[in-house]
């Protein structure tokens, strides 16, 4: 009986993905967006909570200029000092954007439009906005609202919800 109950629990599908984006390097932003979009494509609900530096991904003036991190990113396979050279981050970013275009991965602004159209809810963190003295009019028009952490958790209720921090 216990085994049967455990199997039943294991077979329960994911119903909702609650993603928290706290960084605005291109690699993290795309990981978050692809997971959110992928959820919608599978018929799973998804929401993104943009907090701390993650807010840059929904700031109209900043979202087009996000970069790949070349410093402190071991996957770049280059010495940290080299990654810090002028122009290195721009070069790595340009190379990555080229590869992404080939795979039909949209640029950040278009991706946000796709997410919003697909029903992904986009939320900004109230505390982080206060900390950066950020006004709502600086954020994208597709934003669904500004939430506290408590509000966000309240939205996570229900069976089959997963919360993921990126």
């Amino acid at each position, binding site marked *: 009986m216990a085994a049967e109950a455990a199997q039943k629990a294991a077979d329960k599908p994911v119903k909702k993905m609650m993603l928290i984006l706290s960084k605005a390097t291109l690699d993290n932003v795309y990981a978050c967006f692809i997971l959110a979009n992928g959820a919608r494509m599978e018929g799973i609900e998804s929401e993104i909570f943009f907090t701390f530096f993650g807010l840059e991904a929904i700031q109209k003036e900043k979202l087009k200029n996000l970069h790949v991190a070349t410093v402190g990113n071991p996957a770049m396979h280059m010495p940290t000092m080299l990654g810090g050279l002028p122009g290195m981050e721009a070069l790595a970013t340009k190379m990555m954007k080229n590869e992404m275009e080939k795979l*039909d991965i949209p640029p950040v602004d*278009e991706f946000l439009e*796709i997410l919003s159209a697909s029903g992904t809810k986009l939320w900004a963190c109230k505390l982080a906005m206060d900390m950066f003295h950020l006004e709502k009019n600086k954020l994208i028009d597709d934003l669904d609202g500004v939430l506290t952490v408590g509000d966000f958790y309240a939205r996570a209720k229900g069976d089959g919800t997963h919360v993921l921090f990126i």
Partner: protein
Amino acid sequence: MEQVFAGVSVQVNDEGYLTDFSQWTREVGEDMAQKEGITMTDKHWEVINYLQEQERNEVPLTIRKIGKSGVVNIKEFYALFPNGPLKVSSKIAGIPKPVSCI
């Protein structure tokens, strides 16, 4: 394996996608849609025709391409085929399940 749609027996894989497009007919698609809980309208068929055309031209399908197709926008696409639009519409169209993450 075999499955019967609209009174016709067709070959499908274990996820329910047709393995031989020549077995697809509008009636098969219609019945498949019904089993997915979808009532087909002209707009649905417009999308299905577009998907089949893309498949014939061997263009890999992504949600972004659908949005730029001029046939349907992304919001409408989700409204027409809820519960995984690209997956469900491809199944009804009788073409393979898309492999892209986008």
